[in-house]
């Protein structure tokens, strides 16, 4: 189980990567994360929605409501061109981060 402290910097990268493939909504995203990591990382409800808020404030994602069954609507999120740009930037950043950490812990196992 990964601590949420360690993951803090990468939550937006994870969300952006999911939205790169298709538009999605809160529960689907948190489910995808849980499934893909086989339950090793579970994004908390509040973490997810504060990340949405930050990303939307920076215009990296855009929300829209979509009608669902029984007349209810759901808030969907869509990545913006700016968000795609930010995704690739963060990807590079992640690779650099990995390299840096690797320098210290290589072969220590």
């Amino acid at each position, binding site marked *: 189980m990964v601590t949420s402290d360690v993951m803090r910097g990468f939550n937006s990268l994870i969300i952006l990567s999911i939205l790169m493939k298709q538009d999605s909504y*809160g*529960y689907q995203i*948190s489910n995808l994360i849980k499934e893909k990591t086989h339950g090793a990382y*579970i994004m*908390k*409800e*509040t*973490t997810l*929605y*504060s*990340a949405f*808020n*930050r990303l939307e404030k920076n215009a990296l994602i855009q929300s829209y409501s979509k009608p669902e069954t029984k007349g*209810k609507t*759901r*808030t969907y999120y869509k990545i913006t061109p700016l968000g795609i740009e930010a995704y690739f930037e963060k990807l590079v950043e992640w690779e650099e981060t990995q390299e840096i950490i690797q320098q210290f812990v290589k072969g220590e196992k």
Partner: protein
Amino acid sequence: MDTIRNYVESVFVNLPRTPEMQQLKEEMLRNMEEKYFELLDTGKSDNEAVGTVLAEFGNIDEIMEAYDLESQEEQDDDQIYFSREEADEFMQHRTKFAMGIAAGVFLCITAPAVLLLIQGLYQLFPAWQSVSSDTIDIFSVVPLLLMIAVAVGIFVNLGMKEDEYKLDYRAIKLENATRSYLQREKQEFQPRFAKAITLGVVMCILAPAVLLFSMLFLGEENGLSVVFLLSFIAVGVFLFVFYGILYSTYERLLAQGDYTPEKLKAEKASENVAGVVFPIAAGIYVLSGFLFDTWSTAWIIFPIVGILFAIFTAAYSSYLTMKQRGKK
């Protein structure tokens, strides 16, 4: 499912009730609901499902931070927050305030005593008889006026400083550390307060005894016995005022006694009501006096309104207190 709903409601209760927050809450509730039913489908028990859903909710502080929110509690406008420094400063000001007001009251009581003292001495020493009584009158009235002038100056000055705090009718809110430290100070102050009040009461009871005693020696016509009476009363009242103000300052800071949010709210309301009710009563008295010549009987309206007003104040205050208790 009710457990989950109640939990989310209770977490959102301190957040502003904006449409945005309402929507966020609904959205999160729906996610949690879906998660809950999926967990039940996988064969989890009700308790396990609820536990998992609640554990995966997270911390509302994250939301408040992301949305730049302040909790509702901090926005409450019938309370005002005091830091440790502000509380200390307020205490210092109130100590000066207490000393000033007590000294002013002391001067007002002793002012006529000084007048009587000078005139009493004039009668006592025949050697002074060469001075005309007019001169003595002037010399005894001037100190009286001076003392009252100083007292009024102190009252006005301190009253203006007190206004700077703009507390209005808001209760003071403290951090827990400041609160417990002030609570300790108040406990240490309590025995001193009790001693001072006791001494004040003793002085006031002794005052007429001293008056009677000195009349025995000086004769009934001499004003000096009144000087003794007034001096004892002045010391007693000084103690009441000084320690009374300090005590009420502790209560003010700790929001206890007459200074709880409910009591202050009731006081504010009763002041507003008084501003309307008493002028109306006076208007009715004057009007009915002119129209029906009821000058000698209609005054009854004043005690009646006064009593009704007192009943209203007491009832409203206890209503607010009960309501607050009900909430807790």
